[in-house]
């Protein structure tokens, strides 16, 4: 047995979270540190578990909708959208064209809002404080739009079965136009502060690198997967809700590092803006709510619908036993799956990079714990 001496070093185990300013909620990471180098990282989740999936087994299909606002509360609109697409698929309900377009517009707004929040927190994690407040300024505008249409800012309960709650309020279209005229310039502002900043480059390039093949093996999706150069976007691969009618590009990265994922999300905001522009320019007239039975009783069977959420592929697997309540709802939360890769990504990096990598995965604990 070796004699322990004064100069022996041992691995330091540090609890990062659940109360830590940059674990984006209540994530707890058990870090093993050798000096500042990460030897191992273990995620402990579940601090925000509310049993959303179980609750919805005891609610009718329609009453279940608001619960999905609360899984990924940053992208509440996308979550409800994904669930409703699943339910409408089960029932074979047709959604009027105007409602479909407005849904796409609002989902893209939600994507922008979500990416803004990501950029804000990611930047402040790396120390760029000003970007944080700039992003919140723009996000505020989007939340105001949400409020005027949905009546709420965060947990929006955005859509209803077969369409929308009500048509766009007066002045909404003008507000949207104002926003998308201004927004690209605001994105330029963020890029001015970050994209070519030497410190930002040093902090993000070559950090948390993952190859395309490995990313697929880990089941990653969304910007994290595309950052590694894999061209997979559900909106293009399996268009839903009318996305095939709009033109947009899917930005791809090359190196699969934190910087590439940053560039991709920035570009996605611009592309979302482009989609919104097309929607608002060619918005058809007509009803915003189709015909749907008062109680939904889908036929016995299993259904799976998936959409491209801001964080990746968001899937809803719904099993019906023919009653008014689903037998089982299983959410495929994109960040729950990308969080698995955290250990693989942080090993060998430094303590400070753990923050950058958690940021780049864009996790939302509400969605991970459900």
């Amino acid at each position: 047995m070796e004699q322990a001496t004064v100069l022996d070093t041992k691995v330091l185990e540090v609890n990062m979270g659940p109360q830590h300013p940059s674990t984006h909620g209540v994530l707890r990471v058990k870090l093993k540190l050798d000096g500042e180098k990460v030897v191992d990282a273990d995620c402990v989740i579940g601090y925000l578990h509310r049993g959303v999936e179980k609750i919805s087994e005891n609610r009718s299909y329609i009453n279940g909708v608001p619960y999905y606002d609360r899984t990924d509360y940053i992208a509440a609109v996308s979550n409800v959208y994904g669930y409703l697409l699943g339910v409408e698929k089960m029932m074979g309900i047709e959604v009027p064209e105007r409602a479909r377009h407005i849904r796409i517009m609002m989902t893209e707004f939600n994507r922008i809002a979500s990416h803004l929040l990501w950029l804000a927190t990611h930047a402040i994690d790396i120390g760029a404080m000003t970007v944080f407040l700039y992003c919140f300024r723009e996000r505020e505008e989007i939340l105001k739009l949400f409020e005027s249409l949905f009546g709420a800012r965060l947990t929006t309960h955005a859509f209803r079965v077969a369409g929308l709650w009500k048509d766009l309020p007066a002045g909404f279209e003008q507000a949207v136009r104002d926003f998308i005229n201004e927004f690209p310039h605001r994105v330029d502002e963020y890029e001015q502060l970050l994209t070519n900043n030497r410190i930002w480059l040093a902090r993000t390039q070559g950090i948390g690198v993952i190859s395309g093949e490995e990313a697929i093996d880990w089941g990653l999706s969304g910007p994290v997967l595309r950052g590694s150069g894999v061209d997979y976007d559900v909106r293009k691969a399996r268009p839903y809700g009318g996305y095939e009618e709009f033109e947009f590009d899917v930005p791809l990265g090359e190196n699969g590092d934190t910087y590439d994922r940053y560039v991709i999300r920035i570009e996605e905001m611009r592309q979302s803006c482009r989609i919104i522009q097309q929607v608002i320019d060619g918005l058809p007239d007509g009803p915003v709510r189709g015909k749907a039975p008062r109680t939904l009783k889908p036929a016995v069977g299993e259904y799976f619908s998936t959409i491209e959420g801001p964080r990746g592929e968001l899937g809803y697997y719904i099993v019906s036993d023919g009653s008014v309540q689903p037998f089982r709802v299983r959410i495929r939360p994109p960040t729950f799956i990308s969080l698995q890769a955290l250990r693989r990504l942080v090993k060998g990096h430094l303590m400070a990079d753990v923050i950058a990598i958690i940021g780049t995965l864009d996790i939302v604990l509400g969605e991970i714990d459900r």
Partner: protein
Amino acid sequence: MTFEETLSIYVFIPLVKIVVIVLILSGAIAYLTLLERKIIAHIQVRLGPMRVGWHGLLQPIADGLKFLLKEDIVPSKSDALIFTLAPMISLIPAFVVFAVVPFGSPETLEGPLRWVLSWFLEAGSVETVVQNPIASGGFVTDINIAILFVLSVSSVGILGVILGGWASNSKYPLLGALRSSAQMVSYEVALGFSIIGVLLVAGSLSLVEIVQSQQESGLWYVFVQPVAFILFFICGMAETNRLPFDLPEAETELVGGFHTEYSGFRFSLFFLAEYANMITVSAVAVTLFLGGWLRPFPNVEWLGFLDVIPSVLWFLIKVFIILYVFIWIRGTLPRFRFDQLMEYGWKIFLPVALGNVIVSAGVLLL
């Protein structure tokens, strides 16, 4: 020199100066926090403190009161004595440095001093006292190793950070303390070398004489030693733990770094120490490179009208400008990573500083 004259030159007048400087400095530190919050707020398109007093002017007082009223917590597993001492160790040196920093020219106080002393002393003694720069100068004292004094005293402040982190007996503070010791060691070397350039040109270690030699040459040393100035500025930023070098406290990584376990007034002492150090570094930078109390282009005749502004005010204006740049940088840049910081320190700043010393020595020799 009579006993009364000696007493007033070396005891009473310095004592009054010390009290005034400490009071003004405390106020300045408190209001620097407000200034920073205001400037950063405006950079970030918001208003900053607005509620306490007009445009938040009473905010620092409210903050100080709040800190005083907080519960005094010493973690049970900490080393209580060192835990209590550490904040003081980090704050006091920042004040001590100002003993040698010249705020104004050696004649600053001549007029007021003559008036005040005429109440106590005979006319002859008044002249003797007033002619002595230690009495009438805009500084507490002028020692011939002032710059070494500044360096050594300010490095004591770093001890406070290390001890505080160590005594907390907790992991995040420990990491913060380790970071800070490594950071300060690596940047102090480059800082010292950047100063040598100035010393070579000025030929003196006394801060007052350095400023006077800038007056004689008619050029601020920032124009003579631009590289040294940039190095000094960057290393000074690292010394004061300011963004982009605020690694020891990096709140998004190490929660609070070395002061994670501190709360209440002890925490506020650390907080004030950071701001005090900012002022110290700015004051030293102004003295060494920006001509201290001198007006711009001190030897250009037609700019004489600028002398309307007293020397102390010139000094304060320059310090303010440097402080503003400090704050501005904080509002703009992200944070370095630890290893990158060390790399910059040892691989870039130190060689450049050394090269600067060699080049300036060579030029002077020729």
